[in-house]
């Protein structure tokens, strides 16, 4: 036990000595959380649109005012002598609304009048959002002008659960939180372990009285401490800037966080033990910690959208389960019945990493 503590202290001292690693451990996760959570969000506000009004009647002005009044769209001016497509090609607007001549006359006579909406679909998702917003505005406008008699017999009442303000910050914040923990602690752990191999200081470990398990545990506990410190700092940010709260029982989150810290620290140590080269192990962690967790864990887009040929891989991605646990704790509040299985899997994956790291240690001995 004393040897484990000594090993942990040695690792922590090494981290504190290099400003790069220290900043990497504590400052970068915060920067990442602030930047990424806003930068990967997909819900848009205040999209520029151009209106071409060929009617110029009071009815068409009313309709344009309805568009203008929404917070999701804002009308930008565009010279009348240029075509609508030019506005889209020049990236001035995301969409163009074209109101035909005789629009006001037709409406007053009780004839339905078409209005064209040209959407720049080079970004397919935003295009869908714009067309959805514009349809909603038009429906509301029709309901208002035509009165209740015109509304359909079946009405919808939509309730948005867990995130009624539709703030994407609240969805991506927990995701990027997991990404930060999946990336930086294993990076430091892999570097520290690979350094032992590269500088051959591992030989000193072998001749000392410390056992392989004690050595590994000492290292892993040090990086778990780093991960938990990061977690604490980022949680502060989640609870203040992101406005999140525990939605239900916080115990699954707390236990899963400790297990996940163990999981990522073991992952880093495993990579460092199997690839005793600092530059190469750093790339391996960047691949596992960043790319896989970023792409295959449902951080940005739902996992169901990944083609089946790639989707099975996500079953093995440790970050996926932790993201689901964190989102459940902070948004859904399902508690133990919803997530006990995921907590278990995080523990199992962590133990597997530990086992491989331990085997890698034995091989390092043969090589050194």
């Amino acid at each position, binding site marked *: 036990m004393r040897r484990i503590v000594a090993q942990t202290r040695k690792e922590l001292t090494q981290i504190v000595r290099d400003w*790069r690693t220290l900043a*990497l451990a504590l400052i*970068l996760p915060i*920067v990442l959380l602030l*930047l990424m959570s*806003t*930068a*990967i*969000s*997909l*819900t848009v*506000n205040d999209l520029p649109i151009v209106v071409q009004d060929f009617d110029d009647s009071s009815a068409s002005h009313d309709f344009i005012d309805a568009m203008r009044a929404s917070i999701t769209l804002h009308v930008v001016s565009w010279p009348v002598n240029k075509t609508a*497509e*030019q506005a*889209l*090609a*020049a*990236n001035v607007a*995301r969409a163009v609304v074209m109101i035909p001549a005789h629009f006001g006359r037709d409406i007053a006579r*009780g004839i*339905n*009048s078409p*209005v*064209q*909406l*040209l959407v720049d*679909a080079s970004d*397919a998702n935003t*295009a*869908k*959002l714009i*067309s*959805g917003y*514009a*349809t*909603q505005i*038009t429906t509301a406008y029709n309901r208002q002008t035509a009165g209740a*008699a015109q509304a*359909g*017999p*079946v*009405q919808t009442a939509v*309730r948005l659960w867990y*995130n*009624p303000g*539709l703030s994407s910050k*609240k969805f991506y914040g927990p995701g990027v939180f997991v990404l930060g923990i999946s990336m930086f602690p294993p990076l430091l752990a892999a570097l520290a372990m690979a350094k032992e191999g590269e500088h051959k200081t591992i030989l000193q470990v072998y001749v000392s009285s410390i056992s392989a398990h004690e050595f590994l545990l000492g290292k892993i506990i040090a990086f778990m401490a780093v991960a938990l410190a990061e977690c604490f700092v980022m949680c502060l940010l989640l609870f203040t800037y992101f406005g999140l709260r525990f939605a239900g029982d916080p115990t699954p989150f707390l236990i899963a966080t400790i297990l996940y810290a163990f999981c990522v620290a073991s992952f880093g140590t495993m990579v460092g033990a199997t690839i005793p080269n600092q530059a190469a192990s*750093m790339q391996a962690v960047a691949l596992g910690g960043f790319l896989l967790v970023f*792409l295959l864990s449902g951080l*940005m*887009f*739902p996992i*169901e959208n*990944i083609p089946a040929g*790639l989707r099975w891989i996500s079953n093995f991605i440790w970050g996926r389960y932790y993201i689901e646990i964190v*989102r*459940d704790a902070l948004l*859904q*509040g*399902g508690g133990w019945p919803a997530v006990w299985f995921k907590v278990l899997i995080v523990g199992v994956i962590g133990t597997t990493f530990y086992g491989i790291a331990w085997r890698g240690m034995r091989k390092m001995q043969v090589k050194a």
Partner: protein
Amino acid sequence: MKRLLQFLFNYRLLALIKKEFNQIRRDRRLAISLILPPVVQLTLFGFALSANVTNIRLGVVDDSRSPESRELIATLTESKSFRLAGYYFSVNELGDAVSRGNVDAGVVVPYDYARDLARDRPTTVQFLLNAMNANTATISRAYAEGVIQSYNSGLRGKGINSRVQTVAGMDLARRGQVQLQPAFLYNPGLVDSWFIVTGVFGLLLILNSSLVSSAAMVREREAGTIEQLLMSPASTSEIIIAKITPLFILLCMMMLVAIAVLKLAFDVPFQGNILFLLLGGALCILSGISIGTVIATFSKSAQQAQLTSFFVNPPLSSLSGALNPVEAMPKWLQPVTVLNPIHHFATIVRGSTLKGSGFMDLWPNFLGLLIFTIILVSLSVWRFRKQLS
């Protein structure tokens, strides 16, 4: 002019360039890192990142249990957007299923649904959406409302009751309705991956250029051979040009590989002039190389250079609008994207492939990219010189 050519094609410079090429040729890891990333990253990102909203699992509470309510549920679930995940007896049970994540959305049909419809009274159907993911929730809400709307217009034509209403409703005060007809330009099939891969293309060029160049620049210092170069009669600018030229050529080849992947694997249309794409890409590579060089001048080893790049790359890539629309960022961050070469390049790529924009539309982005490249190149040359002397 003649002097410039003389300067560019003297023996010293050619010899130095040849030396760099030889060094690169021997480094197999570098060659792999030039071919593998464009193919793997483009395909992974392109296939794995899809914002498409289909197959939303729908839980149903049908208190009406009538042919009418079953018809409504059938209309909802026969579209590709919703998939029937199960029937529940009460709203509480449905709520539990939503919070456990068994269903993504729920619909509650009231007990007097069929009666209200028959009597032509408006009736309300409740939708519960798991809105954790704001984007998915917004889109599925639009789907649900769209389905109900078309269901309504189908209902209106039916039955004597509504006929009577239509005749009665033909009063002069009735106003016509606005019918919005959306048309999707440039990407009528709404293919998600086109937006992602054209953005990742820019990320790939900048990030790989900076990675490769910082590794190449720092190697000489790590091995301690930089003094030998300094002792040679070559001037510092010659050393820098000789270092950059082979990297630039190789990275341009990587760009061609990436363009081939865009065309072959993702079928991205090339509507505009491909010259814009190549020109923008070349500028992008130059600025990437300069970023790498600046990073290298701040670090003593390859490992340190890589660590330093962790501080540069995430802000550079996340504030670029490569993976998401710039409008989704907070207002105060949006102007920052003007300072990002990836943002300009992504606009150029999308303009010249998907939209077929001409130079008149793209010149501000070219100007921005050019200014950045010049600033970054001069910064890197200045840093490198300072370090050498």
